[in-house]
């Protein structure tokens, strides 16, 4: 896979839930571009304007807990986010992100979350499970994707994956 490079937007809290990522009243919306304008509205309404295509989100543990709404990864990816880095993810958010081919849910150590700052530039090499903080020169390890998940990611989502 190609390396990813982008700017970090850091929200270090644990348990950032789907009601915060994409609040309930917008569940009736299914247009991706419109959902993007409400991404992270429960935490930072200015978020969509701060993000450029290819950026990363860095958060605390259990990111995406709460509902099964696929609106959450859609809103983030349509806003420009290509990977979320966190110590852990809620399971449905994780599946949605991978199977929909929206963005990569990347698990990293909590200590790595602490060492990476808002607006740092990162380079992510999924094949080597390696993350380089271009701003500081530090490098980190990401948790390897299980092989089936990696294959689905390489297919661009589950649509083209044949069991």
């Amino acid at each position, binding site marked *: 896979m190609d390396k990813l490079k982008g700017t970090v937007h850091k929200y270090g809290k644990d348990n950032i839930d789907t009601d915060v990522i994409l609040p309930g009243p917008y569940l009736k919306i299914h247009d991706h571009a419109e959902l993007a304008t409400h991404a992270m509205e429960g935490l930072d309404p200015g978020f969509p304007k701060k993000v450029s295509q290819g950026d990363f989100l860095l958060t605390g543990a259990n990111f995406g807990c709460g509902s099964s709404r696929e*609106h959450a990864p859609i809103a983030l990816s349509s806003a420009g986010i290509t990977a979320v880095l966190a110590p852990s993810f809620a399971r449905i958010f994780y599946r949605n992100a991978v199977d929909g081919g929206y963005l990569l849910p990347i698990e990293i150590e909590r200590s790595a979350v602490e060492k990476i700052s808002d607006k740092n530039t990162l380079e992510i090499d999924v094949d080597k499970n390696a993350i380089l903080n271009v701003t500081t020169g530090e490098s980190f390890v990401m948790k390897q994707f299980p092989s089936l998940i990696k294959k689905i990611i390489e297919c661009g989502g*589950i649509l083209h994956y044949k069991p």
Partner: protein
Amino acid sequence: MTSTEKIIARASSMPSVAPDDVVFVKVDKLMVHDVSGPGVIKVFEEWAKKGVHLERIWNPDKVWVSEDHFVPAADKISANNIMKLTNWTKKFGIKRHYKYGLGQYGICHTLSHEEGLVLPGEVYVGGDSHTNTTGGLGAFAIGLGHTDIAYSLMHGQIWIKVPETLLFNLEGQLPPHVMAKDIILKIIGDIGTDGANYRAMQFSGETTKQLIMDERLTLTNMTTEAGAKNGIIDADSITGSYLRDRTHEPFSALKGDLDASYAEKLTYEIDRLEPTVAKPYSPGNISPARELQGTEIDKAYIGSCTGAKLHDLRAAGKIMKGKKVKVRTEVVPAAQSIYLNAMNEGLIGIFLESGAVVGPPTCGACCGAHMGVLAKNEVCISTTNRNFPGRMGDVESKTYLASPLVVAASALTGMITDPRDI
């Protein structure tokens, strides 16, 4: 193997499976509602642009649809979504579409058991995170997103990472003012909202065996709030008679082996449990109701797939009978059949005479979408399952989660109240 592992093994045609195995399972039943349904249709539209077309769904007789989150439609977008969903179910030959205002309908997770739609030992996937609820019938029931539901509709199968199982042994007699809601809040308070991430939560022990089905379903419903992949209770004679009243479909329950291995076994002495409340802004932020005595509220809400089953309404009615509410109180039965039964039992009269309003069955205020949204700084006590910031309205509103007994008692005093003190 545990009960969950046995069901996954059967559905994947493997002699055995173990935690962390990733396998494809055959889906037995599938549900979408008025939020996930249009989301799934949107996925199919995107796939069509990529050259993959849905010609027919794998088995329309195994699929059912509910209208619950945005009914009655409060605006044009919701109305159009319902219309789109209705046309879609017709086109693909799905006969079980539970329509608002047309006979039986209600909250998706309530219909799954109320209508006997899911059977013990089955793999049931739903386009909603509280699909876990139906594990109370002894099924492997999990929530999935739109893409996974779309894939399952097309192929009748989906990948599963086999979860480890956490076993909760509930022992002792349930005290008179304590309900399953208090048990599950206590458990989430102990293990945390990510305490069961990627895992199955299984309930067993004497207390579980004595619980009626409505109460068992409250336990499994809120396994979602602990991050669990699924909640499960082995089917027994209570399950059998519950289902016999609702379906003629035959079933054979699968039970875990005696020597199954569990990630952890935890025992709870239920006789010592007190009425429990989860404070804002997390279902795990618990406290005994008595310690919050005096906390003023603006609203009491008795509704949702968690707390508006017939048993929940009976519990609230017992407290509210002949008394007046002091704050605005909404009662929203979880399904039309429950509404009707509550009316026949005189419960609806009790609620109306107390000054509460009774709404048509829907998700209503539970997800803050419409019908009773909270204003800034308003405080609500609710029988629902989530109290994240903004869940029931303004991000600066506050929701306390509790059993129907606690919510009804609080409605009568205008402040958080332990039902033992009424």
